[in-house]
């Protein structure tokens, strides 16, 4: 290979960035379109979609759509509901799924292969196909709360949280990650008499930063972005509605596209923020551990 001159290196760096930026455009443009459109009045927004102006905040720019969107729907309430449901579910999911995966990968017990196969098979079941049976089921479930025993989970937060706490994908993510962890570490700890719980808490979980971050990001997306059909059928009161059901408020006969875009921009903020925060955790955990492959 020829010796690397500084010129050469600069050029290669520039090419790298050029590629990164170009690819970036491909992935960013609908988001730019969304944010830019949220600032425009409907007529202009629609007229602009056919040209480059769709991506430029030009013309009659204002925050009117946001003001109107807040008048149309209790956006704060919806976002609070979604964030609450998401945070609780993601937390529970990380705990329960990592415990299960830990057991599947590091422990040997009767029936684990069958159970793991069954779990992976549930990955296939599209939610749409079990929605009605599940609805009938939760409407009869008991619950012991502050007011004593009650029957039926409709119109609550728990009905939006508990059925979603465990999913095959998250378990599967942990399983695949744990398989790459050094088994000797665990066996050594066992030799020294460490309990399984201690190994889980002190050895495995601290090494699992990347997969925890990944699982949390992906799970939060499902919970925050795709919860539509389920809350639609189990939650009838406005007080418990999440953001995706709230989107329906904006689809009147004449759709106010500007307000739709404003709403979408607003509800995207928590997810993006969450991603940015986790991304840092996820990178620093890599840097500090340097796990083997």
């Amino acid at each position, binding site marked *: 290979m020829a010796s690397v001159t500084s010129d050469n290196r600069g050029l290669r760096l520039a090419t790298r960035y050029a590629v990164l930026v170009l690819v970036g455009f491909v992935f960013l443009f609908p988001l730019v379109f969304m944010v830019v459109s949220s600032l425009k009045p*409907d*007529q202009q927004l*629609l*007229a602009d*979609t056919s040209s480059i102006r769709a991506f430029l905040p030009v013309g009659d720019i204002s925050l009117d759509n946001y003001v109107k969107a807040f*008048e*149309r*729907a209790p956006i704060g309430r919806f976002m*609070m509901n979604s964030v*609450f449901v998401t945070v609780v579910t993601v937390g529970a999911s990380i705990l329960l799924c990592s415990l299960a995966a830990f057991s599947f990968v590091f422990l040997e017990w009767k029936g684990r292969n069958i159970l793991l196969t069954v779990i992976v098979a549930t990955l296939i079941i599209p939610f749409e196909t079990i929605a*009605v049976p599940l*609805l*009938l089921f939760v*409407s009869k479930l008991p619950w012991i709360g502050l007011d004593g025993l009650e029957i*039926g989970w*409709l119109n609550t937060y728990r009905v939006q949280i508990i059925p979603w706490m465990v999913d095959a994908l998250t378990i599967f993510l942990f399983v695949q990650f744990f398989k790459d962890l050094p088994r000797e570490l665990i066996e050594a700890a066992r030799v020294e008499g460490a309990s399984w719980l201690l190994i889980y808490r002190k050895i495995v979980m601290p090494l699992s930063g990347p997969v925890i971050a990944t699982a949390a990001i992906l799970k939060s997306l499902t919970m925050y972005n795709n919860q539509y059909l389920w809350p*639609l*059928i*189990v939650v*009838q*009161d*406005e*007080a418990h509605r999440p953001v995706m*059901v709230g*989107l*329906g*408020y*904006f*689809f*009147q*006969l*004449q*759709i106010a*596209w500007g307000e739709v875009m404003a709403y979408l921009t607003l509800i995207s903020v928590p997810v993006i923020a969450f991603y940015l925060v986790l991304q840092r955790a996820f990178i620093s955990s890599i840097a500090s551990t340097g796990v083997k492959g």
Partner: protein
Amino acid sequence: MKLTKTLLGALAASTALAGAAAAQTEMKLWYHGAGNDVESGLLNTVIEEFNSAQSDYSVVVESFPQQSYNESVVASALAGNLPCILDVDGPVMPNWAWAGYLQPLPISQEAIEGHLDSTIGRYDDEIYSVGLWDAAVALYARQSTLDELGLRTPTLEEPWSKDELMAALDAAKASGNYDYALDLGTAWTGEWYPYAFSPFMQSFGGDIVDRSTYASADGVINSDEAIEFGEWWQSLFEEGYAPGTSQDPADRDVGFIEGKYAFSWNGNWAAAATLDAGVDDVVFLPAPDFGTGPKIGAGSWQFGVSSACETPEGAAAFVEHALQDKYMAAFSDGIGLIPGTKEAAQMTVKYADGGPLAVFFDLSEKQALVRPVTPGYVVAAKVFEKALADIANGADVADTLDAAADEIEKDIESNQGYGH
């Protein structure tokens, strides 16, 4: 942790409010207007005035987004969680009545005296629902377009014939001033198709099902007249008069206003927006006559009593209260719907004699034909929608309508005749 606490506190506070007014029997009302400030405001006025006008009942409203309202109701019915008063779309009512979601509405005869027939939901010789308004569809055009193209302005007495309509579309197409001559609103999927387009088929002489028995569709939806309709429908797209099923939804909303389309087949609810957008010379033309008289769809949202309601007389009292002319007029002024009575129409700005939308009231009275009154309509409507979309996209007309007939009959059979 702090956040959770505040959050829980806020939740507790909001549920505490519901406890007031204990002496009155609470009746829950579900409504499809979530997200529509004006509509919600009007409904709240009706409810507040009802609650303070008498001491027996107290109505509490829960609003849902319209696009998913039916799903919400069906889910609640399955889970045994229906409210007392239900808002129901006219053509869907027979399905819910048949399934036992609704009970007959014990409303007095004088309360519905003089109301537009299409605002009263009858099924199985009983009244199940009554509405404050109806909706109507018209052919939107600009007077200037008609003048430029040298077209006769059709009237209710003398609507356009099929040939006149086609001549008008030809003229608009030939002028080269428009992307398309006619905007049918193919971007709107769902109920719009049967609501807006099945009257065309009926005007040709076909229909979705046989209305004398509601037991068959063969020989009706695929009759010679229906096939003739299908051929015409297909020609609209094949010959480039109208944008197809992939129409951009935004073009549907503003295409006519922006002058992309010469004519637009649209509902009265879009009229106010069209006028507000500065199309001053817009005219609302009646449906053309394709042979057996001009027809448009009818039947909009109405109130009914659910089977779970223990106080049907209370629900009826509320509906009677809501049926006052002043409320109908208010709803009409607020959201542009056609008021249920002549008297109410006179109290409105736009539907009073000489008002810009008065023509819609006449359309509703003269041309309206309700969609087939059968529990099977819900499925038949879906079949019809798909058949029309397929024909628009070039499918063989006779084959498609035959298949539609088969599917509708299969459905009637698997529902044991829907109780007819």
